[in-house]
């Protein structure tokens, strides 16, 4: 069994190339995004890479008014947790919404992945989108 190396670096190297990568347990099929090296379901270390489609719905959000030092000029901005269509949740910046009108940001709305480069970091973000037909 040749084990994959599920490091944060590999995750972000992929994200930079616009691939949102997770790992899937070969024993019990549990899925993790971001990728992680040990299955939370069954404890197996036998996992494989999978790529998420990067679409999902907004599970919860907040608007940050008091930011850390590195984001002083960005506030207010929106951060949320997105439930991906594959069934797992992930945190990201939420863009293309109005942070000054949080009442108008709807929980459950459809969002998809956008990748931002900021302060020399690759940042996972999501923006609202409309599916053509559902």
């Amino acid at each position: 069994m040749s084990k994959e190396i599920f490091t944060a670096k590999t995750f972000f190297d992929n994200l930079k190339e616009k691939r949102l990568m997770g790992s899937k347990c070969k024993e019990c099929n549990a899925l993790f995004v971001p990728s992680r090296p040990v299955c939370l379901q069954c404890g197996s270390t036998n996992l494989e890479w999978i790529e998420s489609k990067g679409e999902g719905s907004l599970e919860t959000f907040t608007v940050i008014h008091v930011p850390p030092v590195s984001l002083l000029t960005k506030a207010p901005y929106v951060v949320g947790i997105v439930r991906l269509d594959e069934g797992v949740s992930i945190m990201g910046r939420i863009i293309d919404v109005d942070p000054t009108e949080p009442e108008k940001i709807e929980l459950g709305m459809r969002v998809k992945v956008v990748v931002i480069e900021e302060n020399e970091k690759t940042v996972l973000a999501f923006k609202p989108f409309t599916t053509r037909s559902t």
Partner: protein
Amino acid sequence: MSLARGVSLVGAGMTRFHHRIHQDKSGRELFNEAAEKAIESVDGGIDRRDLQAVFVGYFTPEAYEHQGHIGAQVTDWLGLCPVSGWRTESACASSAYAFLTGVLAIASGLYDVVLVGGVEKMTELSTEQVTDALSMAACDDYELPPGATFPGLYALLAQAYFKKYGATWEQLQAVPIKSHHNGSLNSNAQFQEEIIDIGNRWGARRGLSFKDNMEVLKSTLNRMVAYPLRLFDCCPISDGAATAILAADDVAKKYTDTPIKIKGVSATTDNLAIHDRTSLTSLRATVEAGKRAFSMAGMKPKDVDVADVHDCFTIAEILAIEDLGFFKRGEGIRAVEEGITSLKGDIPINTDGGLKCKGHPAGATGVGMIHEIWKQLRGEAGKRQISNAEIGLLHNVGGDGASCVVSIFSR
């Protein structure tokens, strides 16, 4: 699970927690101040040389004081070398882990009497720098790059809770209103005023006046921190230290006729990043730690007379009282609104004003909570005393729930 040897509290002491009055003191100086009070608190007196080890919680001394090696720093300044001492860290629960280490150390048979405590010296830095230091409790890989902050993470939980149970921010304000009332009765608290009094004091400078607490909370004075959480939903930035003296049951009687017994202790962890958790409306670390501590103590939530739970943000108090089993899911907010957790209620919560009003010097908080339980179970809590308090509970959380300690104490 049970301990090989019983352990009791025989002393406790804390500095006042505050954002201004300790500015001329360093962390170890604050810790000394708290330790001297713990030593003085021992009914039968104690020779400091009886202390065989010191365990210290301090979350980020590197950020605040450019200092590590905190165990030795503290034993040195207390004049206790060569006794052993080391630092425990688990974010905002750091000193509950110092306490837990003390319990394990005595139960193991290695020591008979130890000093446990914690300290955090936060106020040298700007609010944004403190936000940065506190954010090290979250996942640097996956939570911080999008811009999450500590209040922001709890805001995510609040929004999920509101949605699931149809609750509102307005309802949540029952928490700080209660906290400020309790804090007004606690001379160790950072804020000792009702919200209406603070509002009118601040407002006076701007020509504003208010009729009641809620009007203050809805005003512009209560500025947004992380929607939907505002200033009064958040605990403050504080300096402070708290300590306690633990002794094996078999030697505790040397120090006091009324030791406070440790009936149950439990520690747990959960996934660091909240998106990996099984729920956004419950902290699993609390649920599991609570179950285990109650099981060890052979008790149930209804047996508890007074509890200090981790209320770094208003929503945290609601999650805690549900996760610990005091209330059913979704019913925590109404319980606070109805006064069931007030000083006169069935299960008084955060009689000391909570982190919200007592203050939250992160590393000192856990033992600061134990200090309140100690006072309540000894009947020394003054105007905020719960009558006939016999069983007390400590609940201290690291970060936004990735670690937790629950402990149950009995008079």
